[in-house]
Structure formats: C-alpha cells, structure tokens
C-alpha cells in the first residue's frame, strides 16, 4: 500500500474523527461489576520455548498478573539470552529446564506459555492441558487440522483456559477500528479485502550451535540448522501463510465476523534458492461467504508496500497499516476526506499503537484516546498475557480461544495445500 504522507495523514485524521466517542472497551455485564473480588495472587506461570517470540512474551509479563516460575528450552543459548533479558529488567532469576515435562513435574505451575516451533504445538499443548495447566499458545494454532482438533478437545476435556496468541485483538488501534468502524457499519458492505506482508530480506537466520557437540536430533531436528531455521522446512512449518498470513486472516475473520470457505493459492521459492522448502513468495485468494473475497500476498523481494489489511466497503475503505496505523477513506477517492459525520474531539495525534508499540495502563476511556496513547512500545503482548491470567482467575473470556484460532489455522493450512498442489481447496 503506497500512500503519500498527505494521504496517510488524511486517513489517520478520518479514522480518529470516526472513532471519537467510541468506548475503548466493550462494557462488561453489570453482574460482573456487582460482585466482589476473587481471592488469589499472580498466576504461577512457566514458559516453554525461550526463542525470540518466547522472550518477547517473557518481557511482556506484568508481575502483578503473573509470576514466571520457570523457563524451558532445548537450546541453552536461548535460555541464556532469556536470562540476559531478566537481568536487564532487574527481574528475579528463573529456574531453567531443558525438557518441558520435567518443568511440569517439578514446578507448581498453574499455566504455561507455549512458544515452540509450530509442528510441536499440539504435542506440547495437549499434555499440558491434560496435566491441568492453562495454556497460552503462540500462533498459529497447530501444524495441521488434526492438531487443532486435538488441542480443542483437550481444552474441552480439561476445562482449562486455552488462548492462541493473536495479539492484534489486544492492540489499541485494532480494538478502536473494530469498535468504532466495523461494529458501527461505517464501511458499508465489504466485498473485498486485501492483505499483504511484503519484506525484502532473507528469512533464514544466521546462528551457531550453543556448543560444538550440540545434537538436537533427539527432539526431531537432524541438525542445528533445522532447529534454528525451522520456519524454512515443511516438517516444522507452514511457511509464510502460517507465520504471517494467519495474522491477517484471523484479524479479518474478527473484523468481518466470517471465515473463508475455500482458497486458491500459489507459491514458490523464487529468490532464496538455498535449500529451503518454505516458499519465499506466496499468493492466495480466500473465498468468504456472501460475496466477500480476500487476497493475500507475502513476498521477500520488495518491501515497499510493507504490510497491511485493507477492507474495501461500499461506503469507505479501512486500512490497518503496519499494525500501527488505521487509515479511513471515504469511498470516492483515495486520500479524500471522509464524509462520516462525527464530532472532532480527538484531533491530531498520530496513531502509532500496535502490539509492538504497547502501553495501556491506565486504560483510556475512549477508543480515540486509546489509539492516541500509542506512541509508546507494546502493551498488546502485555495485555494478551494479562487477559489470559484474568481468564484463569475470574473467568473473563479470552479474545482468541480455540474456535477462532482453528478457523484461521484451517484457512492457512488449506492455503499451503493449495499452493503446493495448485488447486482450489475447500476449507
């Protein structure tokens, strides 16, 4: 999405005007507010998988909500880097484990955050649920639909909370767009959406084994390269559709209250022919019911469009740009001021809130105020973990439970299949 600075400024201004006065939070039932407190301290938490995303989640834990008791990872270097982060944040040291089963056995945990490679999600999450632990699992839900089904069934059997980590739900700018634009039907009928996540770089990460004799084969990785760059190998990963596309599909399913029924897709390794199996260029067309079609592209050879979700309605266009901005344009000309009649009480401030640019305490009372607070870095992950803890303590529903997560996972798994087979796959 290439827009001039003036167009972006207009789109931001339109969006802020449109959401002015919208409550920042959906009101909860009066019954919840009328009841007294629930006894209990911070949730006793363990982290399974201390790689990049696991460490981001660890850094986002608010100690008032959760007490992280233990970490585990099969890569000692990841544990060491997690420790460095703890020292930097002046947090207390946390016990380490290599095997997550040992951690469950020796630690008195109520819940775990699972941030392991995609192929292991179901194999880790299901036993954790069966052991009575609540689970916050990184997205995508599972490597295959059977894994999603196993996780869903285990959650139902155990009665434990399971949330899949799509943190757009907790981003101030996405919440504002949903409450202030989508729920108020300001877009009109939406028949087309476009998702893009374009980058210009190599997904392959450079890394060295933690020690010369390090052998990850007992965990299913023949070499350290397979562990370190698991996203590039189909045994462990569903590639760009899972790692990037599922964010878009999940957000679109939320915004449009729908799920895709079929997908056509294409993909190939066009640029980085280095032995990887995951495509570095993928394209898909998701068919939703009621005449809605969404396209998705993710490429690794040009970043000019960066990433966005665009929703094209009969009355207006909403663009969620780079997870940090929301732009609104009246139908009739890109960059034109919107004709939405609103009071201009929330002028001016640039919208820079996103899951990677957090900070929501105390919560502003309006969506516009929430969005305008967003220049600081990332409350969305913190909010995600805090809401997960609140779900455990007081039963407040999580934003992305297994049902929602399964829908987007199924769509992205189907897209991978469609790209591999060059067919239209029914979801």
């Amino acid at each position, binding site marked *: 999405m290439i827009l001039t600075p003036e167009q972006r400024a207009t789109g931001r201004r339109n969006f802020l005007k449109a959401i002015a006065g919208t409550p920042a939070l959906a009101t909860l039932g009066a019954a919840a507010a009328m009841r007294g*407190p629930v*006894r209990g301290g911070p949730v006793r938490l363990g982290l399974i998988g201390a790689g990049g995303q696991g460490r981001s989640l660890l850094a986002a834990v608010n100690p008032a909500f959760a007490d992280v008791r233990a970490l585990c990872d099969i890569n000692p270097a990841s544990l060491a880097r997690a420790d460095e982060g703890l020292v930097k944040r002046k947090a207390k040291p946390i016990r380490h484990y290599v095997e997550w089963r040992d951690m469950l056995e020796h630690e008195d945990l109520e819940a775990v955050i699972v941030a392991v490679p995609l192929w292991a999600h179901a194999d880790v999450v299901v036993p954790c649920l069966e052991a009575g632990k609540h689970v916050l699992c990184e997205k995508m839900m599972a490597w295959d639909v059977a894994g999603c089904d196993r996780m869903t069934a285990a959650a139902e059997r155990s009665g434990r909370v399971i949330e899949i980590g799509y943190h757009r739900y907790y981003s101030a700018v996405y919440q504002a767009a949903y409450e202030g634009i989508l729920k108020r039907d300001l877009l009109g009928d939406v028949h087309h959406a476009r998702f893009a996540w374009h980058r210009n770089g190599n997904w392959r990460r450079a890394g060295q084994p933690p020690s010369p004799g390090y052998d990850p084969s007992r965990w299913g990785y023949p070499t350290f390269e397979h562990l370190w760059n698991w996203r590039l190998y189909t045994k462990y990963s569903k590639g760009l559709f899972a790692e990037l596309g599922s964010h878009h599909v999940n957000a679109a399913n939320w915004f449009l209250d729908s799920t895709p029924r079929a997908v056509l897709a294409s993909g190939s390794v066009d640029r980085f022919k280095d032995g990887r199996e995951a495509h570095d260029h993928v394209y898909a067309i998701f068919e939703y019911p009621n005449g809605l079609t969404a396209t998705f592209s993710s490429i690794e050879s040009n970043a000019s469009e960066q990433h966005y979700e665009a929703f094209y309605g009969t009355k207006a266009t909403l663009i969620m740009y780079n997870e940090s901005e929301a732009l609104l344009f009246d139908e009739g000309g890109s960059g034109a001021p919107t004709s939405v009649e609103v009071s201009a009480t929330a002028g001016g401030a640039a919208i820079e809130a996103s899951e990677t640019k957090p900070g929501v305490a105390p919560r502003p009372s309006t969506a516009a105020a929430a969005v305008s607070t967003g220049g600081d870095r990332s409350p969305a992950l913190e909010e995600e973990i805090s809401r997960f803890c609140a779900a455990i303590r*007081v039963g407040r529903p999580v934003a992305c439970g297994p049902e929602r997560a399964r829908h987007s996972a199924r769509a992205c798994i189907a897209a991978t299949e469609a790209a591999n087979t060059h067919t239209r796959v029914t979801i």
Partner: protein
Amino acid sequence: MPATRTAVERLDLEPVRVGYGTTRAQSVALVVLRTAVGWHFLYEGFYKLMLPGWTRLGQPAAAWSAAGYLAVSSGPMAPLFRGLAHSSAMGFVDVAIPIGLTLVGLSLMLGLRSQWGCAGAMVFLALFYLSAIPTTGVPQSGAEGTYMVVSKNLVELVAVCVLFAFRTGRIAGLDLLWRGSDSWRTDR
C-alpha cells in the same frame, strides 16, 4: 385525634410498642440502621480478607494494609498514627482490622451480641475518626466530600451510639434467643 390519618401517622402513631417504648416505625428504622451499618462493616472486612485478589473485571488487587491510610493521617493525632504505620505492630493491625470489621459486621447484621458489636464499631469508628479529623475545611485527597470537624466516620459513630443506646438486639435479631440472660449486662 383527627378522623383520618396520613400513612406516616398510621405507621408511627399507633402505640404498637415493641418492648422498650419504641413504636413499630422507630423499631424498624433502628433495625434497618443497624443492618446498614453492619453491612458496611461486613463488606469492608470481607473485601480486605479477600486480598490479595482479583476484581471481577480481571484486575489484580494487592494485599491490603492499613499502613498507607495511617501514613497519611491528618489532624491533631496524626503523629501517633503515622508512627504506627511504620512500626512492627502493622503486621498485627493488618490482620486484626479485617477480622474485627467482619465480626462487627456479622454481629450487627445478625443482631447477635449486638451490644458487643456496637461497642466494637464505636472503637473502630473512633479510631478512624481520630486518625483523620478534618480540620482544614477543604476537600482532602481520597474523600468524596468537604468536611470540617464532622466527617462521615463521626456521623456513623454517632449512629452506632444510637443503636447502642436503643439495644436493638432486643427488637430483632438473634439476641432474642438469649433474652433474659445476662450475656451483655446493660442489655437487660
């Protein structure tokens, strides 16, 4: 005596005396007052006992301590209470107050040993009043009104004095089970 009476007159003037010279309306009012004061105490105690905890909206609430309140005491007795806030006695105070409030609340709600309950309530309210006697005449942080000498704590203290004087446990409440006993000497 007029031929027709208003509703209030019908309720109050008829000399339906309940034991100790109060009319039915007076008796009902006294028991309602006792119940309301009792609920106030009971919930204050219950809430503190529930901490550390979580609100139903999912926000954690830290363990309760009187130290913060005492540390910002005002009025003539402020130095005494501020000193207490930083003393080793706070451990006892933080346990005793929630339990005491709860017991007083239960006593007044149930009308069980209600004279003892009134006495406890008066002690608590006197302490609360003395720790923050409003002498500035301007709004104070954390207070929802503007007071001079008379605060809501003092008003509630006077209300409990009234309850104590009227011995409402003999009007309604579990104290009736002990009627005739000398469990509370002044209650006879």
